């Protein structure tokens, strides 16, 4: 267990460093917007007192490193400033929209796994020419379907024909699960197609490779059945590469949800940020990017820890 704790410690450190680097990048990006930071962060009709308060709050007369520390400190305590357009606190605005984005990302990821893993497994194990040919075509098609096309098609179908799905009309999951899924499923499907392709490709490759590993050959020699070999050896051992791709894809989904939110008019973080980008609502953009980056770092760290659990060799190797 000591070994694992050390492994976990290293991951935590890496996550912290990554987050620090990202926050510096965001800070630098916001300061390189033309115009002074105070002008950028305030509505055009702001009064001089508000301006003075902002300069004081962020120490805008201090040297840049001091400004960064002040800004990062504020962000850490949950103060991301106020929206320029609505005047509401960015943190509370993001919080009220997070549920939609998180549900879309999780649902999309789940769909990608549910479709991608079994198809990849079939493609990797099957020896029949027909099955492998079919899988190859299916895989190329899944990897080539643009999410914007799938989404537009679904929106068109839903608004033209009688189907049990809706465009928009989001209900919170726990107040009306059925209505929630009516709105969430097509949106999640939109962003999951590419992930299905990725997961399928990776699963197929990993399974094909593991099938030739000596321990699988040995399992065959010991008379294990096909089902036993898949359950005992193939699934577990192929989970690491699949998880790697899945983690990257979850990171993509955090942003990819934007496309579904825009297409299906859902009030998530993504659409909020895109609108804010259009209105040059900088506090919102900056806050949302930071929060999304933090979420991404958190996911990567959890996935890294999961590696150590799934494949004991990884934990041992990196703790050295």
């Amino acid at each position, binding site marked *: 267990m000591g070994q694992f704790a050390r492994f976990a410690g290293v991951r935590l450190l890496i996550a912290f460093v990554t987050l620090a680097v990202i926050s510096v990048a965001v800070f630098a990006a916001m300061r390189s917007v033309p115009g002074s930071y105070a002008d950028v962060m305030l509505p055009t009709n702001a009064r001089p007192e508000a301006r003075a308060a902002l300069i004081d709050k962020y120490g805008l007369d201090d040297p840049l490193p001091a400004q960064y520390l002040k800004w990062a400190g504020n962000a850490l305590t949950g103060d991301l400033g106020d929206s320029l357009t609505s005047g509401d606190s960015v943190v509370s605005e993001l919080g009220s929209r997070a549920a939609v984005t998180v549900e879309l990302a999780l649902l999309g990821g789940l769909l990608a796994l549910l479709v991608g893993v079994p198809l990849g497994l079939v493609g990797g194990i099957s020896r029949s020419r027909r099955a492998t040919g079919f899988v190859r075509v299916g895989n*190329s098609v899944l990897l080539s379907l*643009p999410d*914007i096309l799938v989404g537009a098609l679904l929106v068109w179908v839903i608004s033209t024909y009688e189907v049990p799905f809706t465009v928009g009309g989001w209900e919170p999951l726990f107040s009306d699960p059925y209505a929630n899924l009516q709105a969430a499923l097509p949106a999640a499907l939109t962003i999951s197609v590419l992930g299905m392709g990725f997961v399928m490709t990776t699963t197929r490759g990993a399974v094909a490779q593991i099938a030739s590993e000596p321990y699988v050959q040995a399992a065959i020699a010991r008379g294990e059945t096909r089902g036993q070999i898949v359950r005992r050896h193939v699934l577990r051992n192929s989970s690491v590469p699949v998880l790697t791709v899945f983690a990257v894809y979850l990171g993509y989904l955090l*942003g990819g949800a934007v496309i579904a939110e825009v297409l299906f008019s859902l009030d998530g973080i993504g659409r909020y940020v895109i609108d804010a980008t259009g209105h040059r609502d900088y506090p919102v953009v900056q806050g949302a990017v930071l929060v999304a980056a933090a979420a991404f770092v958190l996911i990567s760290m959890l996935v890294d820890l999961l590696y150590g659990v799934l494949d004991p060799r990884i934990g041992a190797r990196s703790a050295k």
Partner: protein
Amino acid sequence: MSVTFPSPTPAAPAAPSAGRRRPRVPFKGDPLGRFGLFLLIALVAIGLFGPALPIGSPTESTGDRLAPPGDGHLLGTDELGRALLPRIVEGIRETILIATGVVLVATVVGVLAGCFAALAGRRVDELIVRATDVIFSFPVFLIAILVSVVAGPGRAAAMAAVFAVTLPTMVRVVRAAALPVVERDFVTAAEVAGASRWRLLRVHLLPNVRGVVIGQVAYAISLGMLIEGGMSFLGLGVQAPAASLGSLVGSGRLYLTIDPAYALVPGVVLGLAVLAFNLVGDALRRETDPTLEREA
């Protein structure tokens, strides 16, 4: 009845392998690959020569707004009365150019970085791999949003996103292909004999990574087109009056119930373009990777 006694001299190093004697017919015995190649050539030809065809201007209004496909306008018109056919042709060119251009730059950088990682010591190698890990798993949309905030939305934001997505994979693929070469004896021998790193790269590494890089380029372009499509769809990438396939879907989505072709046709064309590059990449990989041959 044949018995061969292989010569006892060790096989000569297969350094500059592949090359010269490539099969004359591309992707022989691979109908999917040939279909992809055909599609790719057709789309590139349309993108290149389309503007010369008598199909009208992509930016001038015809007067009819949101006309359905058919009478007068093959694919209908948009909300400003611009004919969609020439806009889609322009979109094909824009989308393919952005993806291809960025991927080529990413390839040059990726090949250099990947070979450098393989040749350099352990420390540098690990650093490069870690860095690509971080960029690779960083959500692209955040990068595009940051760039579009600083530089304003436009091609640059979409290109930055495409670059950020395609570079890390390229570095990894090249490094993975270069590592075993570096570890082979003849490279060590060349190093001992005092060959410069640049020479090692040119003579030993590049010929050996060429195969995987060509296949990877096709994949990267297909992914790049998807990313560009998403960015321009959201209004972060190509801006009107210019058009990319993604930006057309983005403006067409508002009229899905009135004129579904406006959004769906460019979407389908984008899908076909991505499919073409994917199939070609797949076929190239099959040609360069002998282990895949037997599995079929």
